[in-house]
């Protein structure tokens, strides 16, 4: 009887469970972007859409109808669900064959802004991505008059296959900012002292010795940057009345790009990160990695257009959208700013130590890398500014620590964890409920937005009990980032860099969370190559 009452009370608190059914038709077709025909993958005929609107507590049923000539899949990015609904072919399920329909079913246990995308072949980077907006069970605490998704992405004229082939043939293929001899002569001529000249030469030599180029901020150039599937000329526009509060749900759904986002003339109040509510923090700009989301409140007061700008971090281009009181208005489109150069710090080395020595790598407590061209005095969001609002969930002390190095070989275009590609490493095994600390050190010169499926990362950003909960965390070049993951759900979970060519070439690991009480495979205690693991078993039995 008491049990029944308890159930009744719970039911009353949670409210009646809602249920929704959604049909998504996957196709490949031509779409016009900035006046140019592009062959893209579409969902219900859209690129960058349709937005799925769910409610926390809802039982969702999603029918995915594959009209392609190839297998497809949908991964629900950042969503907590059973492992077999996670949508990664070969890990969660077998994929969705051409001409068939696959039905996903799971209960929505969270709220905020997320997104979904294909996890098959090159479909994601050729248009197959769209937003998910989940309303909190009790309604949004922070009200807004308008609510818009700003899904940023990158679209290339070359197919993803071609891009990867070029990168494998020439890792520098897309770097059109390489340092030249005239650059050196100019820098030396402008140097004020012999010390300055010496520093310039030492810097050049140090980079040359490493066979790298500090202008190498992004592996691929030539992207058109889109907002909600529209190009900068198409200029996606969200309407407002002056004085209204507007919620902007930023999603970085790009293949290879990190963005620095600003809305000149407006301050941005960050209220959620990766779906989870954070203590509101007001900034002028923020950096968003592929896979991350931020909910932002803005209050445009003037009767004029405001440009939402998302500059790629190499400043080769800009994703642009507009907030305006009326359709057809536009504010000036800022010219892309100055790209930064990587410094020796980004290679994990202080300036006075030009020789690579991993043992002396910088282990800064928390990376804060503002855009170099941010106006002075501008407040740029740092991960250290993110503080959770929900203190109801515990932060258990980690039982063990796993250190991982983020590694790469730009010459061969191979990306890896601990110098081993996905295919060269066994899965990492965990027990349900255990909390594990991950210490990731980035030895490469690229930013890596590291994403985990089906689990949360409690990011150690120096805020102690306020640390935020994320599903994607940028690990900047040369830096170390620490987070704890509580292995809350049994199953097989991908853990990978969300820059898709990094993922595809090897920066990917599989986590296997085993049911509580079940002994872990030998490999968990003693990491070994698959072959030797097999021999070990044969020997013992």
């Amino acid at each position: 009887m008491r049990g029944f009452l308890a159930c009744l009370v719970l039911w009353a608190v949670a409210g009646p469970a809602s249920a929704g059914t959604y049909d998504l038709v996957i196709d490949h077709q031509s779409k016009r972007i900035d006046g140019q025909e592009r062959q893209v993958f579409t969902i219900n005929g859209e690129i960058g859409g349709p937005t799925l609107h769910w409610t926390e507590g809802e039982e969702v049923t999603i029918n995915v109808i594959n009209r392609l000539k190839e297998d497809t899949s949908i991964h629900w990015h950042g969503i907590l669900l059973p492992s077999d609904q996670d949508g990664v072919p070969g890990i969660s399920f077998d994929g969705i064959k051409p001409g068939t329909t696959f039905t996903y079913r799971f209960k929505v246990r969270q709220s905020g802004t997320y997104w979904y995308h294909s996890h098959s072949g090159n479909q994601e980077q050729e248009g197959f991505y769209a937003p998910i907006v989940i309303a909190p069970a009790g309604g949004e605490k922070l009200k807004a008059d308008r609510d818009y998704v700003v899904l940023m992405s990158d679209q290339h004229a070359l197919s993803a296959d071609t891009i990867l082939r070029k990168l494998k043939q020439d890792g520098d293929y897309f770097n059109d900012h390489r340092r030249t001899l005239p650059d050196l002569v100019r820098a030396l001529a402008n140097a004020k002292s012999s010390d300055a000249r010496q520093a310039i030469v030492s810097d050049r030599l140090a980079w040359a010795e490493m066979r790298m180029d500090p202008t190498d901020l992004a592996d691929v150039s030539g992207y058109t940057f889109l907002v909600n599937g529209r190009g900068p000329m198409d200029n996606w526009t969200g309407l407002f009345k002056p004085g209204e509060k507007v919620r902007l749900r930023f999603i970085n759904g790009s293949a290879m790009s990190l963005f620095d986002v600003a809305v000149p003339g407006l301050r941005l109040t960050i209220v959620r990160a990766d779906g989870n509510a954070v203590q509101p923090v007001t900034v002028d700009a923020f950096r968003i990695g592929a896979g991350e989301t931020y909910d932002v409140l803005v209050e445009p007061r003037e009767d004029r257009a405001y440009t939402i700008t998302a500059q790629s971090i190499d400043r080769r281009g800009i994703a642009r959208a507009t907030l305006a009181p009326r359709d057809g208005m536009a504010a000036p489109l800022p010219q892309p700013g100055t790209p930064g150069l990587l410094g020796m710090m980004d290679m994990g080395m202080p300036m006075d130590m030009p020789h690579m020595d991993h043992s002396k790598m910088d282990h800064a407590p928390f990376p804060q890398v503002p855009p170099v061209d941010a106006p002075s005095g501008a407040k740029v969001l740092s991960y250290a500014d993110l503080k959770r609002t929900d203190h109801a969930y515990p932060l258990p002390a980690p039982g063990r620590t796993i250190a991982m190095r983020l590694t790469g070989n730009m010459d061969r275009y191979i990306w890896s964890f601990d110098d081993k590609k996905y295919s060269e490493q066994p899965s990492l095994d965990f027990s349900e409920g255990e909390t594990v600390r991950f210490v990731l050190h980035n030895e490469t010169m690229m930013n890596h937005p590291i994403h985990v499926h089906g689990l949360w990362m409690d990011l150690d950003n120096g805020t102690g009990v306020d640390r935020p909960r994320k599903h994607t965390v940028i690990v900047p070049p040369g830096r170390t980032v620490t987070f704890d993951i509580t292995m809350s759900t049994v199953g097989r979970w991908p853990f990978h860099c969300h820059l898709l060519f990094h993922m595809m070439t090897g920066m990917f690991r599989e986590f296997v969370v085993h049911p509580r009480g079940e002994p872990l495979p030998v490999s968990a205690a003693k990491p070994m190559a698959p072959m030797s693991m097999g021999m070990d078993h044969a020997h013992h039995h």
Partner: protein
Amino acid sequence: MRTITKGLVAILLSASPALAMDDLATYWRVDGLVERRASSVSPDTAWQGSAWIGGDTDRIRIESSGVLGDNGRIDNEGGTQGIDNRVYYSRMIAPFWDAKVGLQMSAFDRGETRAGFLAGVEGLAPYGVHIDAVAGVSNTGIVSGRLEATYDILFTQKLIAQPYVEAMVASADDPAIRLGAGLSRIEGGLRLRYEIEKEVAPFIGAGFEQFTGATAGFATTDGEPTSKLRLLAGVKVWF
């Protein structure tokens, strides 16, 4: 029994092809360079071609190079070159380096041919110097070594100067192809290319070739110059 089954499952899981694009994919690249060369002797046409196919680690490489004079004769380059065809198996041994082993088939002037085994390394040395260093033994029993190095100097993103050096040593004389023992030939020069596309770059350049030691002796006997200054013009392509 259960443990064995579990072990097997674990092995199967770790060997599962899920998402293993990183080791299933095969890539390739073909490089070619053709140039006209003018010097105090008859003008000629030279080519260098290479191609690889394979994964990140293991690759098959083929290389072909040669010089054909306008007089229809193969330029032996002091017995160091001929029309040279090679096939290698190469394996990445360090981030910027491949080791390679293979076979060489060369045709020289007057119908002479040589076959041999080769082993060497190719890669990018610190400071960005591209190195191809190969040692070989031919069917005449002569052991030889060849070093080629190039370096790119960027004037702009598209206008690039590439100095190069080549040197060859041999263990003994091979008079039939006019190769002499010791350091037989060194060549240095520069090609200035303009990359219309990354893949297509016409160039002009100059090179200086010097025969040394016994090889120079053979040239003198034949009434050929022991050194040549050449002007070069050609095109470099890859795909």
